[in-house]
C-alpha cells in the first residue's frame, strides 16, 4: 500500500514536471536573425541578370514567453540586354513590427506564434521592346506602397546559450492595402509621335487564410 502511494506520487511529480519545465527564453534576452542572397547570371553576350537581397530580424523578450520583433528587408534586381532595348531595375524595402508568443513543449523544444504589421515600398523601372515598331520601346516607372497585417508560427529549439533554431510551419494572411502608381512613354507609335500613359491603382484585401510552408531560421542570442 505504501509503495503504491509512493509510485503515485512519483507519477504525479513527473506529470507536473512536464507542465512546469524551465523557460527557454528569459525577459531581457534579445536575438538577431537574417538572410543574405546574391545571384548573378549571364546569357552569352546578350543578357545580364543580377539579384540580391538582405534581411535582418531583431527580437527582444519582454517576458519569458513574449517577444517584440522588428525586421527589415531590402532587395534589388537588374536585368539588361546588350542591345539596350531591354532594361529592368527593381528595388524594394520593407519594415515589419510584431509580437511573438512562446510556449515550451518539453526540454529545449517549444512552439511560437505571432502577428506582425508591415509597410513596404517597391520601385521598378523598365524598358521593353514595343512590338508594333521595329525601333520602338516602352519606358515605364512603377511604384507601390503597401501595408500588410499577417501572422505565423512554428517550432523553436534552443540549442545552447547563444544559438536557437526556428522552424516556420504556418503563415497567416490577414489583411493588406496597397496603392500603386506608374507612368511611362512609348518613343514611337504608328502615328509617328511619342505617347505617354499613366496608371493608378488602389487595392484592398481582407481574406484571412492560413497556409503551410516550412522554413528554418537561425537566431543568435544576445544578452
Amino acid at each position, binding site marked *: 500500500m505504501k509503495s503504491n*502511494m509512493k509510485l*503515485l*506520487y512519483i507519477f*504525479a511529480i513527473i*506529470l*507536473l514536471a512536464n507542465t512546469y519545465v524551465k523557460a527557454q527564453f528569459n525577459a531581457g534576452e534579445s536575438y538577431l536573425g537574417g538572410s543574405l542572397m546574391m545571384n548573378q547570371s549571364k546569357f552569352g553576350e546578350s543578357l545580364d541578370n543580377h539579384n540580391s537581397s538582405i534581411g535582418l530580424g531583431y527580437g527582444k523578450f519582454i517576458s519569458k514567453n513574449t517577444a517584440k520583433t522588428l525586421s527589415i528587408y531590402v532587395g534589388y534586381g537588374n536585368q539588361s540586354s546588350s542591345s539596350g532595348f531591354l532594361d529592368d531595375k527593381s528595388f524594394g524595402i520593407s519594415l515589419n513590427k510584431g509580437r511573438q508568443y512562446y510556449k515550451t513543449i518539453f526540454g529545449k523544444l517549444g512552439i511560437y506564434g505571432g502577428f506582425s504589421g508591415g509597410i513596404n515600398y517597391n520601385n521598378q523601372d523598365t524598358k521593353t521592346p514595343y512590338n508594333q515598331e521595329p525601333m520602338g520601346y516602352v519606358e515605364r516607372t512603377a511604384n507601390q506602397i503597401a501595408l500588410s497585417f499577417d501572422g505565423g508560427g512554428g517550432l523553436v529549439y534552443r540549442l545552447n546559450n547563444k544559438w536557437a533554431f526556428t522552424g516556420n510551419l504556418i503563415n*497567416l494572411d490577414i489583411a493588406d492595402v496597397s496603392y500603386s502608381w506608374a507612368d511611362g512613354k512609348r518613343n514611337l*507609335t504608328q*502615328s509617328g*509621335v511619342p*505617347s*505617354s*500613359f*499613366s*496608371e*493608378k*491603382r*488602389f*487595392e*484592398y*484585401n*481582407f*481574406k*484571412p*487564410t*492560413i*497556409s*503551410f510552408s516550412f522554413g528554418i531560421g537561425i537566431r543568435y542570442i544576445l544578452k
Partner: protein
Amino acid sequence: MLSKKLPLLVMMFVMISFLSKAQYEKGSKFWQVEGTFSGNFTSNTNSTPFPNTTDASTNNSSLTFKRAVFGENNLAKGWLLGYKLEANTSSTDYSLDKSNNYIHTIQAGYFVDKFKPLSKSLAIYGELLAKAGYGIYSGTSNSSINQYSLDANLNVGFRYYLKKNLFINGQTSLVNLSFYQQRTGNYKYTNVNLNSIMNVSSLSISIGKSF
C-alpha cells in the same frame, strides 16, 4: 491520511480540467461568422489617340453566418445564412458609356459538425454541409440575369479557443459537389462540378462564440 491524499486529488482535478470540454457538451450552442472583402480601383490615362482616362473598379464581399446546437457525441447541427456581392464598374471620360454590374447572392444551408477535442482549447472537426444560393443581377445591362446554385461539401478544420468562449476556426474543403445554373433572358448555362482536394495548403478563417 487525508492530508496525503489531498495534493493528489488537487492534482487529478488540475489534470482533468486541462482536458475539459464543456464547449462540446449536449445543449451547448455556438455561432460563427466568416467575412471576406477584397477589391481594387484603377485609373488609366493615355495621351493618344487623344487624352483619355478610363476608371474601373472591382469589389467582392461575402459574409456567412452559422449557428449550431450540440447533441450527443460532440455532434453539432445547425444552419447558415450567407450574402455575397460582386460589383464591377467602369467608365471613360471621352464617351457616355458607363457600365455598372452588380450580382447579389443570398445563400441558406444546413450543416452537421463532428468534433474531436484534443485539449481544453483545441479540437478538430469534420463537417457535412449543404446549401442553396440565388443570385440576381442589377446594373446598366438591360438583360435580366438569374443564378441558381446547390452545393454539398465535406469540410475539415480545427477550432481553437482564444478565451473561454471565443474561438477561431480554420477550415478547408475536401470534397465539393456543386450545381450551378445561370439564366440570361432565354439563354441557359448549366455547370455541374465535382472537386476533391486532397492536398490542404490553406485554410479559411472564421471567428465565433459558444454559449
